[in-house]
């Protein structure tokens, strides 16, 4: 166990935000989960007794007649904002006094940094470079993430859970988002920061970064395993496999979604449903390809003269 190496990574000034992000995320997930649980219990209670649902306060904290429903922004909201600004300023001041922004040697195109890492918030995409070609990891994927985020309000037709924390009313959408945000974005950043060392090789936490380590990995392409040699056959084979993934995966997702989310299924139009399925399957394709690579050393699935997937 190389504690020094561990400390060097964790204490690098630019890595502090990630070290800070983890407890922040845990705290806020806890905060959200606590409120979701309280709301879900209230919802379950009200669902069972319609009489109570008519009169009961629809929030997980009490309200008594006579209490004002609205409060003045001045001072009740402004004091919160003021307090937040002061606390953020204090944190920022202490952080800036105690920790200096990194400054390396002057830029030198002839001396490559190893590992050369992108800013921490893009490390998820850099990690994807291991599994995908740059045109997918660097261009298509960010575009799909942005577009995918943008279509969320238009494909989530569930009218429940608007304006309050809940889990039981929105299991599918919250589960999908948590998977995308925590496992495909934050976890990849953590891997990129703490695990990836020189040569973008995998070093477990506490393992010394060995700049001379060589890994003899023979990555094969999927068509080669099946003994396909001609370019045309490889292109067709890859198209069949990728298309097959979307067809078979789509069918499985369809079967599950229809069974476990019948109301959403009914509400979704064909366009909404296909867009949702496309993004869902593409998202799941990431860990699928990672698994293929890590477990079976498979580099490409689909090989054409113009691009490889």
């Amino acid at each position, binding site marked *: 166990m190389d504690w020094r190496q561990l400390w060097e990574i964790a204490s690098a000034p630019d890595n502090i935000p990630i070290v800070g992000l983890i407890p922040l995320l845990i705290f806020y997930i806890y905060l959200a989960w606590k409120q979701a649980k309280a709301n879900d219990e209230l919802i379950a209670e009200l669902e069972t007794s319609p009489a109570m649902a008519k009169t009961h306060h629809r929030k997980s904290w009490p309200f008594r007649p006579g209490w004002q429903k609205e409060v003045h922004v001045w001072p009740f909201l402004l004091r919160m904002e003021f307090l937040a600004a002061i606390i953020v300023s204090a944190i920022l001041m202490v952080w800036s006094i105690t920790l200096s922004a990194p400054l390396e040697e002057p830029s030198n195109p002839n001396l490559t940094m190893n590992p050369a890492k992108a800013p921490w918030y893009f490390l998820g995409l850099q990690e994807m470079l291991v599994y995908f*070609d740059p045109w997918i990891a660097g261009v298509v994927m960010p575009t799909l993430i942005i577009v995918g985020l943008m279509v969320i309000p238009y494909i*989530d037709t569930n009218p429940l859970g*608007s304006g309050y924390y809940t889990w039981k009313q929105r299991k599918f959408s919250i589960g999908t988002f948590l998977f995308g945000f925590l496992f495909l974005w934050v976890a990849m950043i953590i891997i990129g920061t703490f695990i990836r060392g020189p040569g973008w090789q995998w070093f477990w936490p506490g393992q010394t970064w060995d700049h001379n380590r060589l890994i003899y990995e023979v990555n094969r392409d999927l068509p080669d395993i099946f003994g396909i040699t001609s370019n045309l056959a490889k292109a067709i084979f890859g198209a069949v496999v990728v298309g097959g993934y979307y067809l078979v995966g789509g069918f499985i997702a369809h079967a599950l979604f229809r069974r476990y989310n019948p109301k959403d299924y009914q509400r979704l139009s064909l366009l909404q449903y296909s867009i949702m399925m496309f993004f869902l399957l593409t998202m799941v394709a990431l860990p699928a390809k990672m698994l293929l690579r890590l477990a079976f050393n498979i580099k490409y699935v689909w090989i054409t003269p113009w691009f490889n997937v």
Partner: protein
Amino acid sequence: MAEDNKNGKNGNGARVGLLERVKAGVKEDVQSLKTDMPAKAKEQIEHLKDPTKTQVYTSIFRHKHDDTPRNRALGVLSNVFLHLHPAKINRDAVRYSYTWGMGGITFYLFIVLTFTGVLLMFYYHPSKVQAFRDVLYLEHDVPFGKLLRNMHRWAAHLMVIAVWLHMFRVFLTGSYKKPREFNWNVGVILLVLTLLLSFTGYLLPDDQLGFWAVTVGTNMARATPLLGHEGPFGHQLGMTPYNDIRFGLLGGSIVDANALLRSYIWHCIGIPIVASIFMIVHFWRVRKDGGISGPAPVMLASEVKEPKK
């Protein structure tokens, strides 16, 4: 007329009359100074005891500051910075556990970054010769220069985290649902702009860290489908290292002086202006879409009215 002429000719007597009159006038003036000025001074002092009645004050502040509900409302409504808020809000909307305050903190950090950023601009030249030296100068010679740079750096990291947490909260509370779909999209664009702001700032110290981070980042643009010279179908469309999208981003085929200037201008002028416009729309739409989304009363599945198709 005739009388005047006669007096004029007579001379001496008229002169005496004039002198008398002037004397009397001066005497009157002196007397007025003696009596009026102290009275005025007294009045002035009385006014100063209540500065809120002076014309200067009333021209700036349009209403009284007594603690009445009307003045609390006016305090928000008649102030250009506060009128973003409504006068009154739901008593539950000020709960920290619901909003986490992350949108406001993001905006506050943007202001901090603008402020420290403008100060940094006074000491920085976006040229290959000067840039790195300016950072050294800032760190070692400029009073509080190091603190300034640190605050800018850490506020930027904090802003990225705050934006993510804001998005996370908005998702978990389902706040993107009708009628807030459009504002979610504006928010996604602001998220991208925040990352781009941070990324363009990375190169500016012109050190190894920034240089290689930006090299890694922009190398991905080589692989842009259709528009990059190493991307799918880029070659077929006549893309070379000297005319593709990466060339456009960097102002050259390598990360050099032009890239430094371009990222400086995007960082200090281009993106902040665009982001400000989107922020205006974002805040405006928060109000127009009905204010903050919750904490709303919970909705029951049994109460959902399915829209007619």
